[in-house]
C-alpha cells in the first residue's frame, strides 16, 4: 500500500529526516514511536506533501507520489489526521466535514461519520473552534474519513486527551482497521499503540533505529529507556 524509500527531508538548511524507509501493507496498522523532536511529524509532512522530501521516494498504491501537492495525494486515497487537530476553527462542524468530502462512492459520508461519532451530530452547527479538545480530535478523525482514504496518517491522535478518551480513540482505530483501512499511527502513548499495531518502528534523530512486532517491545527495556524515555 505505502512504501517509503530512503526519504531525506529538510526545513531550509536543517537536515531532519536522514534516510527513512518503511512500508505499510494493506489493512495493517504500523505504529511510529519516538521521543519529542525526533522527526515523526516531519515524516508525516513528507508523505502528505506539506514538506516534500529532497531525496527518496514515496510510493502509494504503486504510484510515485513524491512531491505531489497534498490535494492530489488525498484524491489518490491518503487521509490525514494532523498533530494538533487543526480543525478549521471558523467553520461549523458540518462545514468541516463538507469541505473534506472526496472520492464519492467510498464508504464514508456525513451520515456514516456521524454514526461513528454521535457527539459531532449533536454539535453540527457549532463552530469547530469552540469545541472541547476531545471533540476536536473526533472531528479531525471524522474529517479525514470524509476523504474516503485507503491509508490514514494519524499524528498523535491522543495528545492531550484524558485517559478515558485515549481508550475511545484506541477503539476507533481498531474499528477502522477492522474495516480494512491501512493506518500509519504516530503515538507517544505506548500502551495504546502496541494494542492496535501490527508492526512498530522507533525513530530517533531522523532515522528509524528499531523495528519489531509490538509484543517484542514490551519487554525490550533497552529500547524503551534509550529511545522512548521510559
Amino acid at each position, binding site marked *: 500500500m505505502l512504501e517509503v524509500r530512503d526519504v531525506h527531508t529538510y526545513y531550509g538548511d536543517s537536515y531532519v529526516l536522514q534516510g527513512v524507509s518503511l512500508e505499510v501493507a494493506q489493512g495493517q496498522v504500523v505504529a511510529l514511536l519516538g521521543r519529542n523532536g525526533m522527526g515523526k511529524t516531519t515524516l508525516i509532512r513528507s508523505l*502528505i*506533501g*506539506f514538506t516534500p522530501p529532497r531525496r527518496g521516494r514515496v510510493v502509494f498504491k504503486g504510484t510515485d507520489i513524491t512531491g505531489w*501537492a*497534498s*490535494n492530489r495525494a*488525498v*484524491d489518490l486515497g491518503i487521509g*490525514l489526521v*494532523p498533530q494538533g487537530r*487543526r480543525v*478549521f*476553527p*471558523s*467553520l461549523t462542524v458540518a*462545514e*468541516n466535514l*463538507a*469541505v*473534506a468530502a*472526496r472520492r464519492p462512492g467510498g464508504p464514508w459520508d456525513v451520515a456514516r461519520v456521524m454514526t461513528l461519532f454521535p457527539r459531532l451530530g449533536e454539535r453540527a452547527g457549532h463552530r469547530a473552534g469552540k469545541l472541547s479538545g476531545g471533540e476536536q480530535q473526533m472531528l479531525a478523525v471524522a*474529517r*479525514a474519513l*470524509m*476523504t474516503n482514504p485507503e491509508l490514514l496518517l494519524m499524528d498523535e491522535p491522543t495528545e492531550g486527551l484524558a485517559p478515558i478518551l485515549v481508550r475511545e480513540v484506541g477503539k476507533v482505530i481498531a474499528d477502522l482497521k477492522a474495516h480494512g483501512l491501512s493506518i500509519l499511527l504516530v503515538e507517544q502513548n505506548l500502551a495504546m499503540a502496541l494494542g492496535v499495531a501490527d508492526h512498530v518502528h522507533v525513530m530517533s534523530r531522523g532515522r528509524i533505529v528499531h523495528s519489531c512486532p509490538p509484543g517484542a517491545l514490551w519487554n525490550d527495556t533497552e529500547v524503551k529507556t534509550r529511545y522512548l524515555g521510559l
Partner: protein
Amino acid sequence: MDFWISQVFNGISYGALLFLLAGGLTLIFGMMRIINLTHGSYFLLGGYVGLTVIWRTGSFPLAILVGAVAIAVLGVVQWRLFLHRLAGEELGQVLTTVGFALIFQDLALVIWGGEPYTIPAPAALTGAFNTGTLYFPVYRVFMIGVAAVVAVVLWFVLERTRVGAMMRATVDDAEMAGGVGIDVRRISMGVFALGALLAAGAGVVGGAFVGVYPGADFEILPYAFVVVIVGGMGSLRGALIGSLLVGLLDNFGKALFPEFSYFTLFAPMAAILAIRPTGLFGRA
C-alpha cells in the same frame, strides 16, 4: 434637512461604488494575503474596455460584461504567471503589483490617450427621482442597487455554499485545506478572478459616474485600501460597512470642510485602527 438627506444619499451611493471595488480587494488581501496594488488598474482598465464596447456596440450591459470578464482574465494571467509565486513575500508583491499598475497606466495612455471620458449611461438610468425639494439621480440609485445585489450574492456564496466554505477553510489554514483535498491553487485563482471581475465591473459602472481618465486608478486605490483596512481584512461585512463609512465621510468631508477633506477621511480611520488594529470586523 434636505441638505443632510441628499448628502447621506450621495455618500451611500459613492460607498456603493467603493464596495464593488473593495469587496474583491478584501477577499484577495484578506483571504490570499496578496497585497494587490493593481486593483485600481482593474477599475480603470475595466472602464476603458467598457468605453470601447459602448463605442462599438452602444450596449451598456455588454460593456459591463465584457469589461469585467476581460479584466478578470487579465488578473488571472497576472496571478498565474507572477503573483502565486510570491506567497508570503509582501515586498515582492508590492513591487510587482506597483510595477504592473504603472505598466497598465502607460498601456492605457497609449491605447486610449490622455483625454477624460465619461461612459454614457443608458437613457433609462439618466434623470432623477424628484420629491418636491429632494432630488435623487437614477444612476446613483442604480449603483446602490448593483452593490446590494453583489453583496447578497457574495454573502450567499461565501456563507452558504460548499465552495464558500472551502474558501473560508483556506483562510483558516491553507496547508491543512490542502491536507483534506482542497485544491488551494484553484480556489486562490478563483478568488483572484472574482476580485478583478468586481473591480473592473465597478470601473464600467463608475465610469458613467466619476468618469474614465488617466490617474483614476491611483486616485481610487487608497479609498479601496482604507475600506478594507477599516472594515477588517477578508471580511465582507467589514467591506460593506467600511464602504458606507468611507463614502459618507468623504462626501461630508468634501461638502462641509472642502479644504480638510483628506483629514476628515483619514482621521477617523486612524482612530478606528488605534482602537481596533484588525479593523471593525477583522480577525487577528
